[in-house]
């Protein structure tokens, strides 16, 4: 605790950078996975390519990836962009499968009905399929969020200043408190991100509230008026 209080500026700076390094890959993997998920639902071959490809990407160890990336994209070895790109690749690896499942989860009769009442193919995708795939996409992006926040720490080996620095530095100098603070702040960050995602999901998918995993209604949401008026002139 005393260590934390004495190093608040350092912790805050590292945390903010950690957030920045996490947010970009999370958003990138969501955006990139949707066309991949769409492709996966075209036919069986494409599905196999997308899903197996995703799994293979995830098996690449991170260290070699950091070394290989500067050879593929015009960056230097110690560039943070490498970290962001690598994390996006891992994110897409997880998300591609989720997106494929999410789009496949939309009920066929609903799609048929949308076509029959006059949605054009593009309107149907963006205004019916994508929103209805939302709950499964959200489940996927929550996994990506936690995984990305954990993985950002690895970036410390290529010189990225994030919460991983606290693990590395604390271990080298034998400061246990520093390592513990690193773990706790990472954990809190992951929880905070999850909370934000769940809240966004509730705001963007009000129709899904109170639904179980199968999308059926468990309880009817009802707002209850407060029984007693609290407060007054005091």
């Amino acid at each position: 605790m005393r260590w934390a209080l004495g190093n608040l500026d350092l912790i805050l700076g590292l945390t903010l950078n950690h957030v920045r390094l996490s947010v970009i890959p999370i958003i990138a993997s969501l955006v990139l996975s949707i066309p991949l998920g769409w492709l996966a639902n075209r036919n069986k071959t494409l599905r196999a390519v997308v899903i197996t490809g995703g799994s293979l990407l995830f098996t690449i160890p991170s260290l070699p990836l950091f070394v290989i990336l500067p050879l593929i994209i015009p960056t230097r070895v110690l560039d943070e962009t490498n970290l962001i790109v690598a994390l996006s690749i891992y994110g897409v690896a997880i998300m591609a499968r989720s997106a494929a499942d999410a789009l496949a989860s939309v009920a066929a009769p609903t799609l048929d009905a949308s076509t029959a009442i006059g949605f054009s193919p593009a309107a149907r995708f963006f205004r019916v399929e994508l929103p209805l795939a939302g709950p499964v996409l959200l489940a996927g992006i929550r996994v990506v969020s936690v995984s990305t926040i954990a993985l950002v720490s690895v970036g410390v080996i290529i010189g990225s200043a994030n919460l991983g620095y606290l693990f590395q530095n604390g271990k080298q100098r034998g400061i246990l408190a520093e390592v513990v603070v690193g773990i706790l702040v990472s954990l809190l960050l992951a929880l905070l991100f999850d909370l934000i995602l769940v809240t966004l999901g509730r705001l963007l998918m009000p129709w899904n509230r109170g639904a179980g995993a199968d999308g059926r209604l468990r309880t009817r949401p009802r707002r209850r008026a407060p029984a007693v008026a609290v407060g007054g002139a005091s």
Partner: protein
Amino acid sequence: MIEFRSVTKRFPDETVAVDDFSFTLPSHRTTVLVGSSGCGKTTLLRMINRMVEPTSGQVLIDDVDVASRDKVELRRSIGYVLQAAGLLPHRKVVDNVATAPVLKGVPKAQARAEALELLDKVGLDRSLADRYPRQLSGGQQQRVGVARALAGDPNILLMDEPFGAVDPIVRADLQLELNRLQRELGKTIVFVTHDIDEAFTLADQVIIFKKGGIIAQAGTPAQILAEPADDFVATFIGADKGKRDLHLQQRTGDQGLTLVVDGDGRPVGILDGAGSPAPGGPDPARGQVTRA
């Protein structure tokens, strides 16, 4: 007027759903296509809004070949009601009803105002407008489905077993409601069902199908009941087992009530006014059967 001109539909697996079908459905009337599953009735219905393209032949609406019209625009101009309503689960009731007009570019506020009026029309309380479909009962969802099909005032309504998924009491209710609406609106309705009773309740004209989209008999409910064309039709409408033979039974205990009894001996209704001796009362000769 919807005209089928030697329409054939062969699916990739070589199943022939419809073979050389020609028929003209009159405007402002309800035509019910009835038959067992696999008889091609739904395929025919879906050809009208190009959800299914015929392998050969033509479908014309008011003498215009539907194949010459833009699919999406065509579908927006035709009301469509599906089994289990087919509502969009992520849209509120009012937005579901307003779907087609909004797609056609009607301002949202105006489309919603019209949607609320349509809810009144199909007998739904406006307080349901802000609910999501799954917060409604099956019967209410089906009414929303009808309201959605009526939005934008299309001339044609296609109804594909719309009341198949609701219980018999609600179904009877919805049928009555549809008849009331039709008297008021006079749309060209094409209705698909496998329930012959539903067909007789709703239809101006009934087409009974055999497998492969072959017409077993077409005519008004009265014509078909009075003169079934063959044994297939007789069996289909239940005339062979005397299900539709009615006779009268005078009851002694119940103030001389006259019961109408079907072939199985089950009472189906009472003869209104029959046996009423009061002067000025209903004339027994003009008494009508009230269905139980």
